[in-house]
């Protein structure tokens, strides 16, 4: 389905998204069937589910946006293009005919999500053919990142160090920390270094890595190759979920396309791992890649930079981090706050019409993300940071790692919005149960702690709210667990206690203020 045929600079073209939640495969077939002179190219999703499938009909420097497109409308649009005119559409945008970035329609009739934040690493999503090196080169003024980075590894490492770029996402080897330290360690450790692209994420709400692998895999792989040269690694391994067949296929096609384009002296492999939440943790990712039939977190220190895949020095980053590396090595002005430069990707989900993955510069606030979705009912709370994120009453929080951490929220790029009927005690309890059920079982604070956490919350429903015990347990889990799973597992509970203390007391008194908890009166 995906094609290496480029989409950029084509004068009359119809772009059909394949990938994401509402796939445009039907539209693609319809368009390919009817096309005579107009080019039909499969692109990736834009990340905005409410508009998907978003078919784009371009003619002569103007593009018609066909939201929630059907096969019939695609055929009609194609016929219009064949006839030399644009189809009728909810939004039409004029742009430079050679533009390599998705033109953004004005914020009208439901398309607002595309205008939220700034689309930098997402610029090509939905616009460039995902595995076309020609499109990717066009966006980069001709040069791949690896071409300028390969000859001078020291300079590459220096630029990453100077940029103070931080790792993105829970599966990164340098989550929220400057990545250059891990690069230096890996390149100075004895052994053959390797680069791992960790795109494995089982949290259905954290979609940014999958979006990048489906819609912009070349930027991820190009910067992974540049990273490999910078640390003198011999190979790159891309690790994705078993269920995400399209992400896997696009990554493989992008790797093949790069290999066709130039002689690669670094090999790229694409490997699928389990669809389990634990499988995304950086050391369990390595365990899965090594073929272990049971996943548990590795003891540390030393971390993967010294002892990683098969004991080799390993730099492991998420696709989100590699997308930022492309910006740094491509001499883009990163923007954002100096302590966490660049942009961050967030999937806005929860009680919303449809989730949207958007990009915010780190000097924005999370409030800016609200415009990307329509919330059902009034806003009550947000869970920020994914499955084990923190609960917040408002979103007046910086979109940077230090800002999020300062607000005791999570940084895994998810903002779940919840309406007034959501009980925060029950929400925290559901997350505690997930922790109890899905932990790897290795260390006591996480394995046994999550059990006691659930029990202490159950005690609240039984009339006893032991805030001190809960805080002490949460503290121990956070500070003594082996990996980020246990470190973060108690966060929904502690942040809920902070933001909604009266609700905990009400439950202990037999009352659920939201009126949603069984057995308790409102």
């Amino acid at each position, binding site marked *: 389905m995906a094609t290496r045929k480029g989409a950029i600079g084509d004068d009359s073209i119809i772009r059909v998204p394949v990938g994401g939640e509402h796939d445009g495969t039907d539209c693609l077939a319809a368009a390919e069937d009817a096309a005579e002179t107009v080019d039909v190219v499969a692109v990736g999703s834009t990340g905005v589910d409410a508009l998907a499938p978003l078919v784009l009909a371009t003619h002569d420097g103007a593009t018609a946006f066909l939201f929630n497109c059907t096969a019939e409308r695609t055929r009609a649009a194609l016929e219009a293009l064949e006839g030399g005119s644009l189809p009728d559409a909810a939004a039409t945008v004029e742009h430079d005919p050679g533009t390599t970035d998705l033109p953004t329609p004005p914020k009208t009739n439901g398309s607002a999500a595309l205008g939220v934040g700034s689309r930098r690493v997402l610029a090509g999503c939905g616009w460039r053919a995902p595995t076309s090196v020609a499109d990717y080169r066009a966006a980069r003024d001709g040069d791949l990142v690896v071409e300028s980075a390969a000859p001078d590894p020291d300079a590459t490492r220096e630029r990453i160090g100077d940029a103070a770029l931080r790792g993105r996402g829970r599966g990164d080897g340098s989550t929220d920390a400057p990545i250059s330290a891990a690069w230096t360690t890996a390149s100075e450790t004895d052994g053959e270094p390797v680069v791992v692209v960790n795109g494995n994420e089982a949290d259905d709400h954290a979609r940014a890595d999958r979006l990048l692998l489906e819609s912009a895999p070349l930027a991820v792989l190009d910067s992974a190759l540049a990273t490999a040269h910078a640390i003198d690694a011999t190979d790159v391994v891309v690790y994705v979920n078993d269920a995400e067949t399209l992400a896997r296929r696009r990554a493989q096609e992008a790797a093949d396309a790069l290999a066709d384009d130039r002689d690669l002296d670094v090999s790229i492999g694409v490997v699928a791992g389990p669809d389990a939440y634990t499988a995304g943790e950086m050391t369990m990712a390595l365990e899965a890649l090594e073929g272990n039939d*049971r996943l548990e977190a*590795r003891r540390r*220190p030393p971390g993967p930079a010294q002892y990683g895949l098969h004991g080799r020095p390993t730099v492991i980053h998420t696709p989100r981090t590699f997308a930022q590396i492309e910006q740094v090595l491509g001499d883009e002005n990163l923007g954002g706050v100096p302590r966490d430069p660049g942009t961050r990707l967030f999937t806005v989900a929860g009680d919303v019409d449809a989730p949207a993955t958007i990009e915010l510069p780190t000097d924005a606030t999370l409030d800016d993300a609200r415009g990307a979705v329509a919330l059902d009912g009034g806003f009550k709370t947000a869970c920020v940071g994914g499955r084990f994120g923190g609960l917040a009453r408002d979103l007046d929080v910086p979109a940077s790692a230090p800002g999020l951490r300062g607000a005791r929220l999570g940084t895994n790029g998810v903002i779940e919005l919840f309406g007034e009927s959501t009980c925060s005690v029950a929400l925290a309890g559901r997350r505690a149960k997930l922790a109890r059920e899905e932990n790897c079982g290795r260390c*006591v604070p996480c*394995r*046994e702690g999550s059990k006691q956490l659930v029990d202490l919350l159950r005690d609240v429903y039984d009339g006893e709210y032991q805030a001190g015990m809960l805080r002490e347990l949460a503290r121990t889990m956070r500070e*003594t667990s082996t990996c980020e799973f246990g470190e973060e597992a108690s966060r929904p509970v502690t942040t809920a206690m902070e933001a909604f203390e009266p609700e905990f007391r009400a439950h202990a008194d037999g009352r659920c203020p939201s009126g949603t908890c069984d057995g308790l009166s409102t």
Partner: protein
Amino acid sequence: MSTDPIWENSRATDADVPLTEDIAPGTANDPPAGSTAGATVTIDGQAVETEAGATLLDACETVETDGEVLALCSYDDEELIGPRSECRTCMVETEEHGVVPSCSFPAEEGMTVETGAAAASEARDVNLDLLLSNHNLLCTTCGANGRCDLQDVAIQNDVVEPRYGVMHDRSELEPIDDSSPFIQIDRNKCILCNRCVEACNDVQVEGVLRMEGSGEDTRIGFQNGADTMMESTCVSCGHCATVCPTGSLVEQGLVDATTLPVPGFTHKNSAEEIVGEDYEGQPGQMTPMKREHSTENEPRANAESTVEGDD
């Protein structure tokens, strides 16, 4: 037994010892623990010289510490076992890295450790109580009473009433595996320290025991998928029982060795159910499963042995 053909044959042929790559203990490929070079570290204000490979626990053990560094799951007698760093009752506070597990944290030059710091001491207390919360604390009918590391550290840490209670609901207890005439497994006392798995796989290279499951279902199981010890490929070497820090793996002869004479109250009726108590006599130490797969005992056709079997 100089005429025993077994020994002659097993030396002359590639005996049926499992290759290490066939062994699947279900545990992570952990990095080496300890420092890469000798160092001087400060433990509770006392300077300690350490050698290459030393952990902070090694350093703590050479001096009188302010706090009780329990380090329950740590095992010193065999290099191939641990540190697993599972129980997290060895946490200490460092100036450089905050609260860390001393059993596996490398002793790096210049580190300053405070064992009595409030955060570290709370962490050790809470983690010990978490261990006890999942332990069938019937010491009086336990074969490891008086020779139990968990009991020792609980006493050392002045535990009077564990904050999360102990496992007392009989309906939650797993049946005791009494199927083997040599070793009994009572998983209700297991703290998942993994010592037995490492003794079985890394020291004895037998490949019998493994870690299996995840979350609250994590347990010690068998690599051949058996439900009971008798159906496993165990050779009854007893190393697992030797390293077990609790009464979870006990030699059959010692199961009631330290039971206090309370009428009508025994180790076996402490758990609801027993599996495998009706085993029929086992002539050798190998379980039938191991015997079936083993060729070591059978004279080989090409062996140059002139000695016939005794019977």
